[in-house]
C-alpha cells in the first residue's frame, strides 16, 4: 500500500536575478489506488512540483519533505528515487541519440526491478505493451525519443510506465500536444496501469480534456506555488465552466 506524502514543500529555481521561489508550501497525500489531478494555470509551478519530487538538478528544495512509504525521497539521488518506486512521465521527454529504445528500456527495467528480466519474457512483454499503445515495432531500434513526434514521445512515456510499474506515477501534462486518437490510447494505457497495479497517480494537467478519459478521485487547484483548493470530480467541472480566474484574477480557461 504505497503512500506519497508531500509536506510543506518549498523549492526554488536559480535565475539571473538569484534564486526564485516557485513552490511555496505544497501539502498533498496520495495513497495507492488514488488518482489525484493537479490543475492550474501556466506558471503556477505544477511542473516544478513534479521535477522537485523527481530530483531535477535545476530545482533546489529549500524546505519540506516528500515521504514515500515513510522514507524521505529528498535524501535520495534521482536514480534511487526511481528504484524506490517513483516515476515521472515528462512533459518534454529528452532525446538520447545513439541509445536504442530497446537497450534503454531493458537497462531501466533491470535497474528498477533489481535484476535483468528473462529475455524471452521481456521481449514478449515489450511487444505486447507497444502493441497496446499502437507503437510500431520499428521504434525499438530507434534512438530514445530522437525525431519522435509529440504523440510518439508521450506514448513512449506511458510505455515506460507500463514496463517499470512504479508505486507512484507522476504524469506531467501527458495530454499536451496529443490528438484525439493518441489521447485515447495514452489514457487507456494509464487506466490499465491503474487497474493492474496497486499504485497512486498524480495527473498534472492544464486542461480538463484528459479527465474525461482518466477519472480522478481528487482534484486540486494549483496556483501561486501551492494547492489552493481541493475537491472531488465536480471541482474539475467547475474549472471547465469558469477557468482559473477565481484563483489568479486572469481569464485563463481550463476548457478544451
Amino acid at each position, binding site marked *: 500500500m504505497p503512500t506519497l506524502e508531500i509536506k510543506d514543500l518549498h523549492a526554488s529555481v536559480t535565475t539571473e536575478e538569484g534564486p526564485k521561489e516557485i513552490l511555496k508550501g505544497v501539502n498533498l497525500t496520495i495513497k495507492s489506488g488514488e488518482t489525484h489531478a493537479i490543475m492550474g494555470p501556466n506558471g503556477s509551478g505544477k511542473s516544478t512540483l513534479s521535477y522537485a519530487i523527481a530530483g531535477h*538538478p535545476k530545482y533546489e528544495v529549500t524546505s519540506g519533505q516528500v515521504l514515500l512509504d515513510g522514507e524521505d525521497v529528498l535524501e535520495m539521488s534521482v536514480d534511487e528515487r526511481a528504484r524506490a518506486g517513483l516515476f515521472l512521465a515528462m512533459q518534454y521527454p*529528452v532525446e538520447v541519440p545513439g541509445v536504442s529504445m530497446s537497450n534503454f528500456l531493458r537497462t531501466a527495467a533491470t535497474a528498477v526491478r533489481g535484476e535483468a528480466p528473462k529475455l524471452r519474457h521481456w521481449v514478449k512483454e515489450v511487444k505486447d505493451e507497444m502493441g497496446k499503445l499502437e507503437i510500431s515495432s520499428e521504434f525499438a531500434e530507434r534512438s530514445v525519443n530522437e525525431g519522435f513526434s509529440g504523440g510518439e514521445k508521450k506514448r513512449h512515456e506511458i510505455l515506460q510506465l507500463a514496463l517499470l510499474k512504479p508505486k507512484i506515477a507522476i504524469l506531467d501534462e501527458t495530454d499536451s500536444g496529443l490528438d484525439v486518437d493518441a489521447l485515447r490510447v495514452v489514457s487507456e494505457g494509464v487506466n490499465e496501469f491503474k487497474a493492474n497495479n496497486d499504485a497512486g497517480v498524480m495527473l498534472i494537467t492544464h486542461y480538463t480534456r484528459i479527465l474525461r478519459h482518466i477519472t480522478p478521485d481528487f482534484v486540486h487547484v494549483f496556483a501561486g506555488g501551492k494547492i489552493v483548493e481541493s475537491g472531488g470530480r465536480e471541482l474539475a467541472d467547475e474549472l471547465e465552466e469558469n477557468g482559473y480566474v477565481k484563483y489568479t484574477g486572469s481569464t485563463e480557461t481550463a476548457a478544451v
Partner: protein
Amino acid sequence: MSVTENNVSEAMREGVVIPATSRAERFTSYDVEAFEVPGGREENWRFTPMKRLRGLHDGSAAASGSATVDADAAPELKIEQVGRDDERLGAAGVPSDRIAAQAYSSFTEATVITVPKETKTSKPSTVKITGPGEGKVAYGHVQVRAEQFSEAVIVLDHVGSGTYADNVEFVIGDSANVTVVSVQDWADDAVHVSEQHLKLGRDASLKHIVITLGGDLVRVSPTATFADKGGDVEMLGLYFADEGQHQEHRLFVDHAVPNCKSRVMYKGALQGADAHTVWVGDVLIRAAAEATDTYELNRNLVLTPGARADSIPNLEIETGEIEGAGHASATGRFDDEQLFYLQSRGIGEDAARRLVVRGFFHEILVKIGVPEVRERLEAAIEAELEAVGA
C-alpha cells in the same frame, strides 16, 4: 551545447591577427631540408606541444630502432617489403609538413600492400605495426595500392612503445572500393606523427577510419585528393583522450576535380586534466571542381573539467557551381537533461554516462565493417570510462 571559449575569441582578446592563407598554398616536398624547423607558432603547429615531439620536427631524432610489421592478411592480398628506391612510392601525395618529410627522408624499408585488380578480398586483413620500443625512434612507410575494381577491408593496427613517424599512402584505383581502419592504440609513452595520403582514382570509393586511443602524443594528418571524377571519400574518426594525452587530427580534402564527394565525421571524447584534442578540417573546392558534394563535422564531448578540445573547420570555396558544401563543429559537456532522464528511470549516474558516451560514438562504430575491431573498440571505450569512475 554551447561554446564559451574558442581560439577565435581568444585571439581577438589577445589582439593577435590570424593571417588568412589558402590551404592550396601549403608547401609540400619529399625533402626534409626544404622545410624550415617549425617553432610552434605556425598555423600548422600552434596547438602542438613542440617539446613533446622528441625532436621529430627539428632533425634531432635519429632512427635508433625499427617498427615491426606483422600481417594477418586475406590470401588475395600481396604484401612486400621494399627499399627506398621502389618507384611506386610517393604516388599518393607529397609530405606537407617537416615531420612527414623527415619520415620520408629517413625510412629504410617500406611495406607495400597490393589488392590485385578485380579482386575482392575474402576477409578483412590486419597489418600490425609495433613501435620500436620505449626510448627508441623509428620511421616508417606503408603504401596500400588497390588496383582497379578491387575491394578490400584493411586494418592498420599501431601498438607498442617508442617514437614513430610515418607516411601512409592509399592509392585507390579506378572503381576500387576500399575500407581502411587506422587504429592508434599505442602504449602510454608513445609519440606517433603520421601523414596519410589518400588518392582516389575515377569512380573510386574509400572509407578511411581513424581511431586514436593510446599514446602520449598522436598527430594524424590525412589528406584526400582526387585524380579523376566520381571519387567518393568518407573520412571518419573516433578519439578518446585521457589525462595528459594530446591527440591531433588534421584533415585536408582537396577537391580539384569535378563530381567528387567527400564526407568527414570525427567524434571525440575527453576526460581528465590536461587532456587535449585538436581537430582541423580543411576542405578546398577549387574553381574547376564543379558539382562537388562535401560535408564535414566534428563533435567533442568533454566529460570532466580541465580537458580542452580545439575544433576548426575551414571551408574554401572557389566555385558556386556545386552540389553542396557544409561544415559543423560542436563541443560540449554532458547534457544534464539527458543524464536526468536516464537517472529518473533508475539508471545510476555511472551507467547513464556510459550509455550517453556509447550513444555518442555509435554513429562511427556502426560504420566499422570489421566486427572484431568494433568489439575491441567498444571494450576499450568501456575501459576508458571505468578508469575515471565515470
